[in-house]
């Protein structure tokens, strides 16, 4: 059951709201049941000595994560981050100000781990970890999409996402997990993807897709190979891509690009998921388990390249963490990683983003487009948080901003950016990241989307923007749901590779002629 709530009006200018204490108080998202908790190694329900377990876990985390330790000690309460969170801007709840959110954690840390907090708790704002505090943790740390916008503006780079991940790990360890994330992780770790699509279902879906494309393109056989040993590229993509609009249109785009390049590629039924919700619950071990599946798939299928589809946090985990977690990259020590690294083709970055790949093909003149196919669209690009603030593309400074825009501009004639302070490293979150993409959190999702919607409204009015392109499965799902709440067309959200798909000219012969010509040149 979803509770009724006000949908914020879109202001002409984004203003910092007056504080309204307690508006987002509540129970938080649905709690995870035993059946989802235990497989991840967490207790099924709140343990009896939860307080001790929690404090011990805080102690462990702060000794394992420099980020947490330094961030807890360094905040000066300058307030620079207070008006940077989309959830605060949309909800006016002061506990959604990044520093106040961190303080739920920090005040407990102070109380149990610092001299000042032990002996002068009132003076330094140190607080007991009691039931009320624990409820606040569960509620408000599930109102953070770990988007890291606040961190960009903090003079010490204090990253609320790190604190919210740590808090969620503590909550999991005392037995209060979030249903959405933990249930999904269970599916990903057993069946291979978040949707729980088993191999036969996946195979069927892909066959249907092949047929559909063949019909649509008038007989061009674009293939979606599954578990094909010896393929060059293993594509790891969010399982949403196999399933629903607008995601699947992106998958169609990838297939067409691979087809035009003439490269052999495959999906894996064992690791049919790019998303790694282990990051959302802050668990290194769970995240690693999910990442190891990908290493295994790459080894089993003997591929020489690993590529990631359009998914924001999947790309963050792949780009920044895979090498650490499972040795997809360079320089790992253990046997399996070494084997993989010998197997990978290091002329390409490993892993590589599909945008990097398509961009490279465009640069080399390998793809031909009819841009006018997208002439009914005026496109703007939503920089997804994890891509924008936590990764790079193309190995050039700010490549994660440049490459997707260049790809879009190569396939469309009409492109406009939203207001500068709402894009690139300052991009506003879609409101659904960080494990919040669940119906029981609809209120915070809609409120948190407000700043992004406001910027979109402006370019809609001023420039006639009617298409919002994104490269993240969560963004796409979230926008499909919240766009209509703000009187936008829900179908205006598209994959970047959908735009590619619509403009690409699927004429193999023409491409070959072009290639010959360029060789003569």
């Amino acid at each position, binding site marked *: 059951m979803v509770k009724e709530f006000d949908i914020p009006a879109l202001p002409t200018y984004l203003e910092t709201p007056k504080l309204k204490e307690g508006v987002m108080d509540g129970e938080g998202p649905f709690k995870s049941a035993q059946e989802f908790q235990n497989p991840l190694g967490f207790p099924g329900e709140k343990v009896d000595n939860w307080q001790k377990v929690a404090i011990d876990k805080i102690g462990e985390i702060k000794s394992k994560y*420099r980020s947490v330790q330094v961030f807890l000690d360094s905040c000066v309460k300058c307030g620079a981050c207070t008006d940077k969170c989309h959830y605060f801007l949309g909800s006016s709840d002061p506990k959604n100000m990044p520093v106040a959110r961190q303080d739920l954690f920090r005040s407990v840390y102070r109380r149990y781990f610092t001299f000042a907090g032990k002996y002068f708790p009132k003076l330094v704002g140190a607080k007991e970890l009691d039931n009320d505090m624990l409820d606040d943790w569960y509620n408000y740390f599930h109102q953070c999409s770990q988007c890291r916008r606040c961190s960009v503006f*903090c003079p010490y780079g204090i990253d609320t996402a790190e604190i919210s991940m740590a808090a969620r790990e503590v909550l999991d360890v005392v037995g209060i997990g979030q249903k959405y994330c933990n249930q999904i992780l269970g599916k990903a770790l057993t069946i291979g993807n978040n949707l729980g699509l088993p191999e036969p279902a996946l195979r069927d879906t892909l066959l249907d897709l092949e047929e559909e494309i063949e019909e649509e393109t008038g007989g061009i056989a674009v293939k979606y190979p599954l578990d094909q040993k010896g393929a060059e590229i293993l594509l790891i993509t969010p399982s949403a891509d196999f399933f629903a609009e607008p995601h699947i249109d992106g998958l169609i785009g990838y297939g067409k690009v691979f087809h035009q390049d003439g490269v052999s590629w495959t999906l894996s039924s064992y690791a049919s998921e790019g998303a790694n919700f282990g990051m959302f619950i802050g668990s290194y071990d769970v995240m690693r388990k999910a990442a190891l599946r990908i290493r295994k798939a790459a080894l089993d299928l003997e591929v020489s390249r690993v590529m990631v589809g359009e998914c924001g946090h999947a790309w963050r985990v792949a780009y920044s963490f895979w090498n650490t977690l499972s040795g997809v990259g360079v320089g790992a020590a253990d046997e399996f990683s070494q084997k993989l690294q010998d197997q990978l083709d290091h002329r390409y*970055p490993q892993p590589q983003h599909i945008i990097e790949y398509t961009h490279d093909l465009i640069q080399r003149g390998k793809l031909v487009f009819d841009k006018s196919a997208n002439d009914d669209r005026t496109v703007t690009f939503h920089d997804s948080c994890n891509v924008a603030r936590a990764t790079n593309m193309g190995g050039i*400074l700010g490549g994660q901003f440049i490459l997707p825009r260049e790809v879009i501009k190569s396939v469309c004639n009409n492109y406009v950016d939203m207001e500068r302070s709402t894009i690139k490293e300052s991009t506003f979150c879609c409101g659904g990241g960080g494990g919040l993409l669940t119906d029981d959190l609809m209120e915070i999702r809609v409120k948190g989307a407000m700043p992004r919607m406001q910027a979109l409204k402006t370019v809609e009015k001023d420039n006639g923007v009617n298409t919002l392109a994104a490269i993240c499965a969560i963004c796409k799902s979230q926008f499909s749901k919240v766009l209509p709440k703000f009187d936008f067309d829900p179908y205006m959200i598209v994959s970047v590779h959908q735009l590619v798909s619509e403009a690409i000219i699927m004429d193999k012969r023409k491409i070959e002629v072009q290639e010959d010509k360029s060789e003569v040149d």
Partner: protein
Amino acid sequence: MSVISIFFTALFYISLIVFFIGMVKKIYQFGITPAPLKIPIAPTPLTQKGVVMRIIREIVLFESLFRSNKWIWLFGWLFHIGLLLILIRHIRYFWPYDLPDIFLLTQSFKYAAFVMVIGLIGLMLRRIFVDRIRYISAPSDYLMLIMLLIIGISGMIMTFTSNHTDIIMVKEFASGLVSFNWKNLPTEVYFLIHIFLVFVLMAIFPISKLLHMPGIFFSPTLNQVDNARSKRHIAPWALKQEKEHAIRLKQILGKDE
């Protein structure tokens, strides 16, 4: 030596020791705590040189703060730059020998006190009147500003009004602390307040938010190079875990990991 001089002399060393031990412990703790994952935040430098430049810009110009909020930036920056200039000017008091000529240059730094106090007042007003910042403030946040304000204002009273303190005595006392040649200190009330609070501040440095000073160098979002794909980054505890896991993997080879 008078009782009060003995008290302040002792307080100085105690504070200094607390400061020193506390800071070493904290920096050591920051240093040994591993950063298991690459988490640099955009705009992210791709090279080590870029990281160094980024930290320098943060420390000298408060770049992120500038991007964030011009008022906080202005007051924060004025306060810090004022404080820095004044600290430099104070070296003369602790210098146990004849003053080298270079110190003449720092003479005019005394006016930085105004800059510092203006910055502090601005920060204080924001803390009181902007509801968001009031909401996040604990008593210690105000207290810290008040202490700094009293230190700054008492110093200004001694420098710019007729309440001068015996500068020769100050110099003898202060340089005596450094060279272990202890002397009496002047007992004017402004001076006593001034140095009392300075010593207290020194002592609470390692247990307060003043830890942002070493903290900024250890912040993984700021100090990491964005090169995870080309260089493996792994924490000792994770490596240990990985090795143990590898042994287990060998035993179940062929089966699912």
